[in-house]
């Protein structure tokens, strides 16, 4: 857990620090002391409460998230101020006006219209101000700067329970389709078109931008960008993403990663995109096993054939045991870092576990549900066969 001060949200800690060091603390009245105590407690809570770990929204890596965070920071300070004013008044009233023995009946005040009107107008102005600012931010964030670098376009399709990424024009005329790992060049706007094949999902990479739902029947558009000057670490950097709308049993395990890389690195990845080579005999055996067992759902040599995709989708929607379903494109699996929609790190062992029994790793997933291999629980493949498949998929010697 990071105890780190707010790096870019620096505005957060500074005013607070100067506030609490003001000499008001010398007053010995209960009220002042409790206010200061409250402030310190709040700061302490903030310090331990806010982290910048994996999915934290406190750490913006790009302009979209940054503007959203800036707005939130202002909002937060307004709210904190209102909080202390109102709760302070409440606390003051509670302490100051508690009943004392023998106290006569208090004055019977019925109201005060001037006060009411003032206390209606002040919040109205405050709220309208914030509201108008939000509206500007909203429109401001709608599209990337038209004068900036040309955006890279990605089509994202959600499936129960994994993400498909398609780069229509990244690979020199070759379409690139991959899954669960989005690679993006740094300092370049990425425009995304979001769709869903089945139920509603939601696409969220907290460090790059707020979420947007992926709704069947709709094509939603969003954009974000990763800025090199906002990223302290050495590129490539991997960010966390997750589906944020309840989409069924494996919703919690529907994650993905975004890898921010230099344009050059991205280009060479795109150029190398293709089926795994078959350098060894083991890999060749794996290739055959794959063709026999896996190609009903998976594709491994580049983009899917649209007709094939369509038939898989129909198979999925019409149900039944042992039917084709849409499945992650495995063409570049060997270059990825995670497995099964970002839930485990990709390694020989984890891939073996996955192929033995996907259900153990991701309950409810459609691979173990629908593939003939897993109809009785664990895979009906032998250990050697699984080894061969791993050798092929990961291009192992």
């Amino acid at each position, binding site marked *: 857990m990071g105890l780190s001060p707010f790096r870019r949200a620096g505005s957060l800690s500074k005013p607070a620090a100067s506030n609490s060091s003001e000499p008001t603390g010398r007053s010995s009245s209960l009220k002042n002391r409790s206010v200061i105590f409250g402030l310190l407690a709040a700061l302490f809570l903030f310090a331990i409460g806010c982290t910048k770990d994996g999915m934290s929204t406190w750490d913006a890596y790009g302009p979209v998230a940054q503007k959203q965070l800036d707005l939130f920071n202002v909002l937060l300070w307004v709210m904190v101020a209102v909080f202390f004013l109102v709760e302070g008044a409440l606390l003051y009233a*509670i302490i100051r006006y508690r009943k004392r023995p023998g106290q006569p009946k208090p004055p019977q005040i019925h109201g005060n219209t001037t*006060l009411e009107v003032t206390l209606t107008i002040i919040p109205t102005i405050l709220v309208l101000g914030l509201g108008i600012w939000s509206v500007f931010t909203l429109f401001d964030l709608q599209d990337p700067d038209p004068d900036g670098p040309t955006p890279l376009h990605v089509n994202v399709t959600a499936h129960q329970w994994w993400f498909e990424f398609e780069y229509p024009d990244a690979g020199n005329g070759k379409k690139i389709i991959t899954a669960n790992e989005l690679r993006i060049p740094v300092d370049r706007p990425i425009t995304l078109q979001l769709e869903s094949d089945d139920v509603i999902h939601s696409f969220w990479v907290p460090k790059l931008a707020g979420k947007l739902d992926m709704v069947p029947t709709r094509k939603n558009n969003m954009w974000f960008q990763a800025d090199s000057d906002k990223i302290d670490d050495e590129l490539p950097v991997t960010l966390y993403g997750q589906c944020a709308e*309840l989409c069924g049993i494996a919703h919690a395990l529907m994650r993905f990663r975004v890898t921010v890389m230099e344009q050059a690195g991205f280009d060479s990845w795109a150029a190398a995109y293709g089926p795994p080579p078959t350098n060894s005999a083991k890999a060749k055996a794996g290739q055959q096993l794959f063709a026999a067992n896996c190609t009903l759902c998976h594709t491994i040599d580049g983009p899917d054939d649209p007709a094939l995709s369509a038939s898989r989708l129909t198979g999925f929607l019409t149900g039944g045991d042992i039917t084709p379903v849409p499945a992650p494109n495995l063409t570049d699996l060997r270059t990825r870092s995670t497995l099964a929609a970002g839930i485990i790190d990709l390694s020989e062992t984890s891939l073996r576990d996955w192929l033995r029994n996907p259900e153990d790793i991701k309950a409810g997933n459609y691979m173990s549900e629908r593939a003939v291999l897993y109809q009785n629980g664990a895979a009906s493949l032998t250990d050697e066969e699984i080894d061969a498949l791993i050798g092929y998929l990961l291009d192992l010697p």
Partner: protein
Amino acid sequence: MTTVDHKRIAILYGVTAFIFLLIGGLEAGVIRMQLASADNDLIGAGRFNEMFTMHATTMVFMVIMPLGVSFFNFVIPLAIGARDVAFPRLNALSFWIFLFGAVLMHMSFVVNQVPDAGWFSYANLTEKPFSPNRGLDFWSISLLVMGVASVAGALNFIVTIINMRAPGMTFMRMPVFVWMTLITSILLVLAFPVITVGLIELTLDRNFGTHFFIPAEGGDPILWQHLFWIFGHPEVYILILPPMGIVSEILPTFSRKPLFGYPFVVFSGIVIGIMGWAVWSHHMFTVGLGPVANSVFTITTMLIAVPTGVKIFNWIGTLWKGAIEFTTPMLFALGFVALFIIGGLSGVSHAVSPSDFQQQDTYYIVAHIHYVLFGGSMFGIFAGAYYWFPKITGRMMDETIGKINFWLIFIGMNLTFFPMHFLGLNGMPRRIYTYSAELGWENLNRIASFGYIVLFVGILVFIYNILKARNSRRVSHDPWDAPGLEWSIASPPPAYNFAEIPQIQGRDHYWIVKEKAEAAGTPITEPEALVDPSSIHMPSPSYWPIFTAVGVTLIGGGLLSHYALSFVGGVIAMMGVIGWSNEPAAAPSDHH
């Protein structure tokens, strides 16, 4: 079983809803246990989804709403000087339908086909291909059944409040709680038909082959979201306005001062009720409705903070210069104000749509929900329970235990839900049954789960306090020296409530009466004298309500099992209505 007395129906509602609170609370416990550590495997994903779905459905529809209705039932006729509600048998019908509907919903556990799509069950996850078992049928049909109960109840209270006020009780003299009940009831009557249509369409989709929410056939799952939230947002005000009313009764009582700015409190309630209809899409900021729609709903939502703020300021104004006595109901009422402010402020930060893009569907929302619903609604209800307990039973709950109760719940509540703000901002999505340790959410989740234990003990203390009160001393009719009309009669009140319908003298009627009596040198120490009950014309008990309720529930139950059963249910309900209308509402009396 055949009672039509509003006070007994209130107790039936209260006890039933409290039992559901325990059930919903235990479900919350399962959720908290599962989330107490990272990569936990205590219960599977499937069970977890069922838990939060049933937790929220129970808490919203079977706890807070009926607890509100329980207070309406007990207090409203007493507070407006009436002998009963306008339609006593309809009132009984509401209760039985509610009870049977709630039981029907929980039958899903018996057959192990539990609803699991969340409390707003977004289409099209709810459609047959994605939710093949009967869980969602249980959900939608039970909600339809309970909806009948809610609307019937609300109709009854609208008529009662408009039409049965004692002479002299003008609208602007009505206690704020009565006002809030009126507004809540109107919201209910208008909001429920909308969800009813949504639920009917869902039921048709799942059982009769329509495609209202099926994209492959041109249906639009977003329509469900609109229908749900057009209902859903007024619904959250249905959940908070009654407790706001309760608090507006309690704060003046224990500050010994009339409510500050009464007309402003009332009108802000009305304004909230109206504005509540114009903000529903703030639950849909991330759906992709476009910047124009998002702007509109951002502004309308933020403006709702203003009338709510007015209420808060007036409550503080009521305390100001008062002589505050820290009884248990007062502690809960003050807790309500303090915690609701927090919930309201986080609400305003959701309203700002660009930052809500980061917050939506995270624990930051879960924190908001529980600050307004637990810190707000539940605290208001606890306050009301402690406040009216002596009126309901004639006995007092123990004040010391009450204070322990308050502090446990207050601390437990903050321990449980405050960390969720950070969890959400640190990126933890809601409705996930597990999370990986590397994301740094574990410690805060531990605190939250620990807080649950404190809450659990707090609720046990409450139960203990109620049970203990059975043999505590009897108290006078007016232990709190309260301003409301209901305190002028004996505790517990006689079946007919008022021997003679009182003439209302002003806003805080009973304070005025007591003061005048004191000035005249004859302070009031006794409740209104009892009279021979047979001299007062009261509605007689009837078994038609429960009979009809069985019929209505069977119609729903039949849809879940055999359609023939629905038919039988229809016939029974019909017979019930016929029997009902042929039965005189009150025993024939001599002097008519």
